[in-house]
């Protein structure tokens, strides 16, 4: 099943995709055409948002880093999220703002001291994230610092969550980013340095992962600096196609 979180008639609700992903069925039974949906980021409120840095070998090379051991994990706040077909501000001085397409694994069951062999039983579903970074704002303290990775609405997420059971092999999915129709990022989840099972095992050694927690698993190579007005599409096969538009900053 695919489930979306939408705003509908004054309330936030989860809705199931039906009719070959052409419509949404609300809990009331009401059917809504996709074109009528007001998409929200498909997140369980309160969820911890983990993100992996430098988790695709080629992307690491491209940025001039050595692969990190242990893995580089950072956290993000829910202020960063925005839904499918949303807008993200491209700051006037953010000339090095680039999209990062990421597969997001969503925790389905509590996990603590879970081995890599058992880890995938704790994944409930998957979605797509476009995690923008703005390289001008990087500082060499607590990298990647929050001014780069925790700005409001700079992480489009969605359009929906696909149940884990429907993805045969999450480590064999093509992912790509298109900006105004031109491909700027391409890769396969097969190239992750630490796979999803390994990430869950690592995190759960010291932290309890709770249902709804999200793990953004890193991004493949391809750095393309964006401008206001750009349409940015992050696409992962079998999971979804997430569309976002960059807009210019307006005055206070």
């Amino acid at each position, binding site marked *: 099943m695919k489930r979306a979180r939408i705003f509908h008639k004054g309330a936030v609700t989860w809705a199931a995709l039906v009719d070959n992903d052409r419509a949404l069925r609300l809990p009331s039974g009401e059917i809504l055409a996709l074109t009528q949906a007001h998409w929200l980021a498909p997140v369980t*409120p*309160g969820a*911890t948002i*983990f993100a992996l840095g430098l988790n695709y070998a080629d992307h690491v090379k491209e940025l001039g880093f050595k692969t*990190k051991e*242990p893995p*580089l*994990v*950072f*956290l*993000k*706040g*829910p*202020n*960063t999220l925005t839904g499918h077909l949303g807008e993200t501000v491209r700051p006037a001085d953010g000339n090095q703002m680039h999209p990062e397409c990421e597969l997001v694994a969503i925790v389905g069951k509590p996990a*603590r*001291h879970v081995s890599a062999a058992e880890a995938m039983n704790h994944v409930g579903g998957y979605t797509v994230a476009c995690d923008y970074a703005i390289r001008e*704002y990087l*500082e*060499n*303290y*607590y*990298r990647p*610092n*929050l*001014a780069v990775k*925790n*700005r*409001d609405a700079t992480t489009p997420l969605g359009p929906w969550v696909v149940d884990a059971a429907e993805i045969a092999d999450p480590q064999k999915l093509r992912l790509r980013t298109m900006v105004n129709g031109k491909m700027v990022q391409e890769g396969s989840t097969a190239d992750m340095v630490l796979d999803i099972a390994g990430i869950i095992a690592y*995190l759960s*050694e*010291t*932290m*309890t*992962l*709770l249902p709804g927690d999200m793990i953004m698993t890193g991004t493949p190579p391809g750095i393309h600096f964006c401008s206001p007005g750009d349409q940015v599409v992050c696409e992962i096969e079998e999971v979804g196609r997430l569309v976002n538009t960059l807009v210019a900053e307006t005055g*206070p």
Partner: protein
Amino acid sequence: MAMIAGTIYGVVLNDREQHRRLAAAFLEPPYKAPPQKPVLYIKSRNCLTTSGGEVMLSPDLTQVEAAATLGLLIGRDAHRVTMETALAHVAGACLALDITEPHDSYYRPSVRQRCRDGFLPLGGLADFTPALLDGDIETRVNDIAVHSWSPRRLVRDAARLMADISVFMTLAAGDLLLIGLPFDAPRIAAGDHVAVCAGRLPHLSARFRAEIAA
């Protein structure tokens, strides 16, 4: 723990004395320049625990650092607030004991150093009064006073911190902002009992225990 529904943000390197001591190191690699913006971190929800409880230390940790600080509960979304208006967005305050695995590098720390289960005991919430920012925060370990500091030591005081953070991100209603950590926070081991008090805020305490290997 349902007490804090939002995100918990904290700030390191906000202690004037620490800045004085690290001034030369800030110019060396990997930093190469002093920090320009507040150096922020997030404490994930698995860290939350209430006062009076136990903090379990896993076998790989012989000691942790336990920094007592104030948490400001945001009552209204703060976005691009000024120093003059910032504190009007604060709805409450509590004591917090921010526990970390000791680490010297501020470059790219691992999330597990700061965010293990139980690594943020919080005291009860009370009204926020500006006098709290002027008072002392005292830590006792095994009933002996071992540490005292004051938010007067902050590089950025609470109002300036909220102004400088809310330039690039919203501090949302329900979020908790930990205003800074003393660089000389006490080291704690399994078996220790830690108690924190500041002004009229509800006291905070935590007992540290060794976790039996799973």
